[in-house]
């Protein structure tokens, strides 16, 4: 609960506060126009959040307990605020916030590019509506959201939650739980090591390239797009595929040992087990084709 303190402070005190607030920002920004570099000491597993407007955000995990940030802003109408918590000492939370001095509707393509090195065990929350996001080698949980731009995440170990309204999503060698969701974008999974993976898009295509973890669950769904799964001949999985389109399957499968629902007159269903059926693969497309490719 707050301690009450007088509300009507003298205007002079306010002016001093304002000056104290503005001067460091001004000095910091004056280092080099458009380019700012800063390092902050953190705990080994801080929570780092970025809220950008437009521009590329690249975040890489490193072994230091430190966040190193490099920003490039293309306009004097953009400001980047950095808020470490606590403000002094090792921060366990760092926020980066880009904001425009004009209203968003008047901003004219101004962008801020971020390049961040963060402790490898950081938890990330990145929001970059009109810019692309790339995350590499981060072991904590990662949440990324864009509106129109692509997202790429490589070698993530924690829970990965990636969302884009219209951008494409690419996830490479993810090990933790993966949830990828787009409306108009494509989704591509490359060499996943995750035992719990879900990709959903409305009009985009889904490509899964890699093997399945035993006892893993893989759920791929699109509405009007196509789904292509490329997996090795040594894979072991139980497949359920449903679509109004076509199902092409390169694997010679045995009928499912578990319950197989009756065929529907409205869509094509495919159920089968390959090898021991150690992983569960569920693939759906309402209108698009589903192709399961066997790789040598």
């Amino acid at each position, binding site marked *: 609960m707050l301690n009450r303190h007088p509300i009507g402070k003298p*205007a002079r005190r306010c002016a001093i506060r304002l000056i104290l607030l503005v001067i460091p920002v001004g000095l910091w920004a004056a280092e080099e126009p458009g380019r700012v570099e800063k390092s902050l000491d953190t705990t080994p597993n801080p929570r780092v959040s970025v809220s950008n407007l437009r521009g590329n955000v690249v975040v890489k995990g490193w072994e230091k307990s430190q966040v190193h940030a490099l920003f490039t802003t293309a306009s004097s109408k953009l400001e980047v605020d950095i*808020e470490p918590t606590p403000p002094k000492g090792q921060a366990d939370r760092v926020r980066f*916030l880009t904001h425009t001095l004009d209203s968003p509707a008047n901003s004219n393509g101004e962008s801020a590019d971020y390049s961040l090195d963060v402790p490898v065990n950081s938890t990330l929350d990145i929001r970059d509506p*009109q810019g692309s996001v790339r995350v590499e080698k981060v072991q904590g949980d990662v949440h990324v959201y864009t509106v129109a731009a692509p997202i790429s995440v490589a070698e993530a170990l924690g829970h990965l939650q990636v969302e884009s309204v219209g951008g494409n999503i690419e996830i490479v060698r993810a090990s933790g739980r993966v949830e990828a969701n787009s409306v*108009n974008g494509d989704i591509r999974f490359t060499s996943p090591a995750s035992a719990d993976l879900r990709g959903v898009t409305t009009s985009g295509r889904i490509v899964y390239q890699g093997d399945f973890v035993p006892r893993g669950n893989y759920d791929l769904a699109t*509405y009007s797009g196509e789904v292509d799964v490329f997996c090795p001949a040594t894979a072991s999985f139980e497949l359920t595929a449903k679509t109004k389109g076509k199902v092409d399957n390169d694997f010679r499968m045995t009928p499912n040992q578990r319950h197989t629902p009756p065929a529907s007159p*409205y869509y094509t269903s495919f159920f089968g087990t390959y090898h021991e059926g150690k992983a569960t693969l569920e693939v759906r497309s309402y209108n698009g084709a589903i192709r399961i490719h066997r790789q040598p």
Partner: protein
Amino acid sequence: MDEGEGKATASCRVFDLELAAYLEGEEQPELVAHALECSFCYSMLADLERIRSASSELALEEPPRRVWTNIRASLIAERIIRQPEVFWRRWLESWPAWAGLHNPVAVAALGCLMVLGIGLLRVPSVRKSAVDLSDVASAAAAVGPMETSYHAQAASFEPSVKETYQKSLDSLDGEIRECLASVRQEPDNSLAHEYLLAAYQQKANVLQSALNAEGR
């Protein structure tokens, strides 16, 4: 917001964003720290704390029926919701007075005759299994107000952001239309039903995201 300045700082914006979570009991030490330094945010927090404290002492009472009626009337007047028309009332009102159908006795008599007539004239037909669209109706009802808010705010969005949101909403509306038509024609088409619900859920997510982002 610093006193006398009239312009929100970044900390004030963060304060605004996290205020709801704090009031719901989440620990937000930096929010409290900011409030101690900012008289505007301090006043707002103190007011909300007082309201919360006072409201917790109030007994929960069901508001009188007229309150709901007035709210409903306002929503209809503002075209946020529509008044469902009762079919039989509209049908009866379309008849001229001479037909005597405003007389309950005449209506009852005519009704009996119609039921009888239908019973006699009915030919055997293949009965379609009834489709339960109650979950779909609930999903659609949940999305409706969000869509209204979105359209009210979308004018202030940056054009490219607005275009992306609109394109995605168009895709989802197309999916909803197609799946809804399939579900109506093929009530046991579980795939269409599943996709229909998923489309409403996705649409709600997109709208929520757009409303949270306020066009950013």
